[in-house]
Structures are given as structure tokens and as C-alpha cells.
């Protein structure tokens, strides 16, 4: 069941079009993550959903009801801000109860809700403190608590973890996932961090310059990126793109010419012979020991990063195109050496000159 529907949503500041027609339906209880490069309009979109930013065009509906003109507090939405935005002059308790007091909820009910939220977030011992007396992680919890007490249908998070250090970030990420499971509300979450996106999302929405490039489950996005942009954006290290030329195009596949080396991919490609294509290869799919698949030739190693669990190799193919390879485990490889690299055919992605995915 859909709780939130965006229908051709647009936003412009003056004559600057920031959001250029976004269509999206979000189901009840779904965890949706917005990702995209800085300035693509993630926050703006979120703020329009929240009611903090007027909508320039299109329709926003929640539970089937048009919401464009509704005040933020009447949309059944709570928002967690990147900087937490806790009221500095109020105690933790007051920070959480303020919205409920504004809504004129009876005192005992407020108290019950605040204590329950504090219990869930394990901040009961902090209730009398002021935000100034809290650590970053504690402030983050209070900010989430402030959202929980309102018992919203939809939670909005704008990069909630970006001000935390790495360890806390992982910990809080796990807690947010647990919170989602426990209370089952719809959550929309904005982040820069791929790991957050991949681990938290039921569905990832990739935005670029105010339009949705692709949305789907994390694995769909990873396995079948709709275009070069999405392919490059999701996955780390970034996907390699090699320039190839198509030939021998038939229904069951296409041959590609990679630095004089021919290979056949079982991808249904509607392109003409001689079309310039982009071959996308994820670094972690490229191997040195495989026997089958595509032979990429010899890789001259330029630089090696030993990460412990993984060895990342940066090098050049015989035709000079650079290629990054991520190998499992620790490998005794040093700069200057050469490696024979291969990749399984099913892990190859093809993109046409416009950057769109070719095949299934």
C-alpha cells in the first residue's frame, strides 16, 4: 500500500529549476534511501515532503490525500536534521515534549511517550540535561527521540549520521535499522554514504540534477545499473569503464573489440556494428585466477593498496586504459609487475554512447 506519492514534483528557486519532475510512490513501512551527488536536490526534495519548502509544481499526497498546502505538522511526518537542530535552551525531555505540548496533548500522555522513546533509545538518564551537555551520538539519539514521540507515519532523515565519527556511525546505523524493524514506520533517508544506502534501504533512489536516475532494491541497483551514472555512483571502488567497439551484433549477443582482443558477450544489444560502447566492470568482479570469461589481457600495475581484507590494484591495460581491480585477501603484488586479468561474462555491463544500459 502506498503511503506517500510524488507526482511530477517540481521545485524552482527563482528561475533555477532544482527538482525537475520527480515521480515516486513509497509503500507503507518502506525504507527508502535518496542518494546522489552534492547539490542534486536530495535535501530540497526531502524538505518539500516535510513541508518546509513550498512545492512549485506537481502533487504530493500522503495516504491518498493531497498535502501540497498542508502545514508541516499536519502531514504526520517527523524529521531528523543533519545538525540535529535541538533547542539549545531546553532540556532533553523538553526537546522531545515540545511538539506534543504544541499539539496540546495531555501531560500524562506526553510523559508516557517521552519516557517510552527515551527507553527505546536508552537516553532515560539524560532527560534532564541540556543539549550542550551531550556528546554527538547522544544528541543524535535525542533528535531521533524527538521524531519518535510524535508517532509519525513517515520519518525523514537528512544525512543524520554525517556529523558522527566512523565507529558511532556504524553503531547508529545498526540502531536505525533496528528502529525501523521495531516500529515499522515509513522512512526516507538521505545520505552520501553508499554503505548506509546499501545496508539500510529497502529501495534506493538515485538522483541527479533534480531527476530520478533509477530506483530499485540495493541489489537491483548494484546488479543492473540503469546507466553509467548510477553504475559509477553505487559500488566502491568505483566501476571501471572501458571504451570498446561493437561488432557482429546478433540477437544472442554482441562481440566487442577491446584493445584488439575480441570477446563475445551474451547481451542483447540493439546497436549497429562499429558502435562505440562503454564496458562497465566492477573492480571486485575482476580476477586473476579465473579461467573462463573475458580475457582482459595483461595489466601493468601502477599502484597497490593493501587493505588487509582486500588488495586494490590500479593499473593500465595494454591499450593504455586504466583499470582498478579489487582482489580478495592479501596478495603479494607490487607496482611495475603485470597481472593477467579476467572477468566473468555475466558481470559485464554495456552502456551506449548516451550512457544508457544495453540489454536486460
Amino acid at each position, binding site marked *: 500500500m502506498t503511503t506517500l506519492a510524488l507526482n511530477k514534483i517540481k521545485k524552482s528557486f527563482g528561475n533555477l529549476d532544482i527538482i525537475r519532475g520527480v515521480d515516486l510512490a513509497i509503500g507503507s513501512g518502506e525504507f527508502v534511501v535518496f542518494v546522489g551527488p552534492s547539490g542534486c536536490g536530495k535535501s530540497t526534495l526531502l524538505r518539500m515532503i516535510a513541508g518546509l519548502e513550498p512545492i512549485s509544481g506537481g502533487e504530493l499526497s500522503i495516504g491518498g490525500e493531497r498535502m501540497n498546502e498542508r502545514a508541516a505538522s499536519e502531514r504526520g*511526518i517527523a*524529521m531528523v536534521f543533519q545538525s540535529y537542530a*535541538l*533547542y*539549545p*535552551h531546553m532540556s532533553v525531555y523538553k526537546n522531545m515534549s515540545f511538539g506534543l505540548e504544541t499539539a496540546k496533548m495531555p501531560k500524562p500522555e506526553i510523559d508516557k511517550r517521552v519516557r517510552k522513546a527515551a527507553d527505546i533509545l536508552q537516553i532515560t538518564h539524560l532527560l534532564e540535561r541540556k543539549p550542550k551537555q551531550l556528546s554527538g551520538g547522544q544528541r543524535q539519539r535525542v533528535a531521533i527521540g524527538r521524531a519518535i514521540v510524535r508517532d509519525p507515519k513517515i520519518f525523514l532523515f537528512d544525512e543524520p549520521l554525517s556529523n558522527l565519527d566512523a565507529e558511532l556511525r556504524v553503531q547508529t546505523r545498526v540502531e536505525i535499522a533496528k528502529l525501523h524493524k521495531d516500529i515499522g514506520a515509513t522512512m526516507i533517508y538521505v545520505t552520501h554514504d553508499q554503505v548506509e544506502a546499501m545496508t539500510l534501504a529497502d529501495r534506493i533512489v538515485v538522483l541527479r540534477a533534480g531527476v530520478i536516475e533509477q530506483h530499485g532494491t540495493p541489489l537491483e541497483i548494484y546488479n543492473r545499473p540503469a546507466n553509467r551514472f548510477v553504475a559509477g555512483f553505487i559500488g566502491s571502488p568505483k566501476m571501471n569503464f572501458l571504451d570498446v567497439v561493437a561488432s557482429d551484433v546478433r540477437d544472442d549477443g554482441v562481440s566487442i573489440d577491446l584493445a584488439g582482443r575480441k570477446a563475445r558477450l551474451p547481451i542483447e544489444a540493439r546497436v549497429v556494428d562499429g558502435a562505440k560502447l562503454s564496458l562497465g566492470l566492477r573492480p571486485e568482479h575482476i580476477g586473476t585466477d579465473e579461467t573462463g570469461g573475458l580475457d582482459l589481457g595483461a595489466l601493468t600495475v601502477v599502484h597497490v593498496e593493501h587493505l588487509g581484507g582486500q588488495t586494490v590494484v590500479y593499473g593500465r591495460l595494454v591499450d593504455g586504459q586504466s583499470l582498478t581491480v579489487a582482489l580478495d585477501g592479501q596478495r603479494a603484488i607490487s607496482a611495475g609487475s603485470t597481472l593477467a586479468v579476467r572477468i566473468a561474462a555475466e558481470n559485464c555491463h554495456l552502456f551506449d554512447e548516451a550512457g544508457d544500459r544495453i540489454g536486460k
Partner: protein
Amino acid sequence: MTDAALSTTTIAPRTDTGEPSVSPWKRALLYALLLAVSFLMLYPLLWMVASSFKPDSEIFTSTGLVPADLTVDAYRRGWSGLSIGFGWMFFNSLVISLLVVIGNLFSCSMAAYAFTRLRFKGRGFWFTLMLGTLMMPQHAVLIPQYVMFLKLGWVNSILPLVVPKFLAIDAFFIFLMVQFFRGIPRELDEAAIMDGCGPLRIFLKVILPLSTPVLATAAVFSFIWTWDDFFAPLIYLNDIEKYTAQLGLRTFVDSTGTSDWGSLFAMSTLTVLPVFILFILFQRLLIEGIATTGMKR
């Protein structure tokens, strides 16, 4: 981040040396010089206070600060030196100053909130006009204002001194508050919007409680400037029982001429006393207020 953004610009003494460090000798010399200058600057004020405790004969013979013969006689003479006691005039001054403080805080904070936080057509236009009035000398509007208050029957009452302050006539304070409000993170307003607050509740529950430093600064400056104001009471108050302390002191100069400096100094000391107490209590606020806005009278 939130907290840092909220604190006003602090100009606390800095611990590192300003320009590359000064040699000890030069430093000692500098201290001596600064001490001498500050002593010289304060001397007249100190002498005035000291003289108010001296018998009259001593004022014209002693340049020293320690009265040979400590007496509060001058205070007794001065306090009832006019047909209306000075106590009454102090009371008038106090009432006017407090009302002005309330008026300024109320009206200027509202205007500053509108200018910094609310979106409405013409905001930029009005803001520019407000800045324009900051530079405009009062003389341009003085006479028509007077005529207007005269027609309203307000002359010889405190209304002309007080009512304009409830209409945000002191653009300086709007400016001061605008500067401060701009430093309050806008996300706090947005959090409050999500919490169901309208503009009024955001103003009362979020912006004002976070603005106590600037409100205090505005209150202290309002009080001191009104307390010290001479021109407006001079033209608007006619009856001696409506006089402020400043007007009373001026009248006292007229009536005693230069015959009784002792009681003049005693009453002068008393009129400066409230300002001095506020200065001691709120020194930091006053100095930071001046440093951050870069404006003063």
C-alpha cells in the same frame, strides 16, 4: 555547531601577543603610559565624587581625591534644593526608562524577527528603508513630531517619550537584533515548524529564549540612553513635577548658579550612579554590543 553559532562574537583578551612580542622595558613603559592616561581620564569623575563629600570651602582649594572632612551635607542640601524633591525626579526617570526598555525590546525584536525569519513580499524594501533611518538625524522629523504631539495633547506628559519606543523607532536596536538573530541556525525554526509551531510560537519559544544576550544588551543600552537623555525631556516636559533627573539637575544649575558646587556635584553623582552600576554589572555585554554592531551614540 549550534552552540558555537549562538555565542556572540567574543572579544575576550587574547592570550597570544598581538603583534610580535614587546620587550619587557617597552612593556613596562606602555603600562605606565596607559595607567597615567586612564588616571587622567578618570580624574575629573573621581574628583566630582570626592568633592560631593567635601565641605564647600574645600572644593575650591583642594584638587585631591580624599576629603579632609567627610560630610554628606551636600547631598542633604541638594536632595531638597528644588521645589520638588530629587527623589521624585529619579522616580520619573526610572518610570520612563523602564517603559522605554519594554517598548524597545517588544517592538524591535518583532521587527527584527520579521526581517530575518519571515518571508513576505516587500521585505527587502522595508529592510532597506529601516537601514536608511539608522543614519537619518532626528532633526528632520523633530518639529512635525512635536506639533503632532502638541495637537494630541501629549506634550507635558511622558507619552511622547515612551510611545514611539513601542513603535520600533530606534532602528539601532532592530539592527542589533537582526545581527544576532541571523546567527541562530535556521534549522531550529524548521524543527519548530515540524513541531507544529507557527511564527508567533517560534518567536516566543525559540528565538526569544535564545536571544537573551542581545535582549539584555538592548535593555541596558535603552535604559542608559534614556536615563541620560536630555533633549527629549527638555522639549516635551514642562512642569517641574514631571521632570526627569537630568532636567532637574539642569534646573538646579540654573537656580544655584555656581554658588553651591557641593550639592550640584552630589546630585550629579547621584544621576550618574545608576549608569555606573549598570556599567559595572553589564560591562561585557555593553562592550561586546558596541564591538559587534560597530555602532553607538
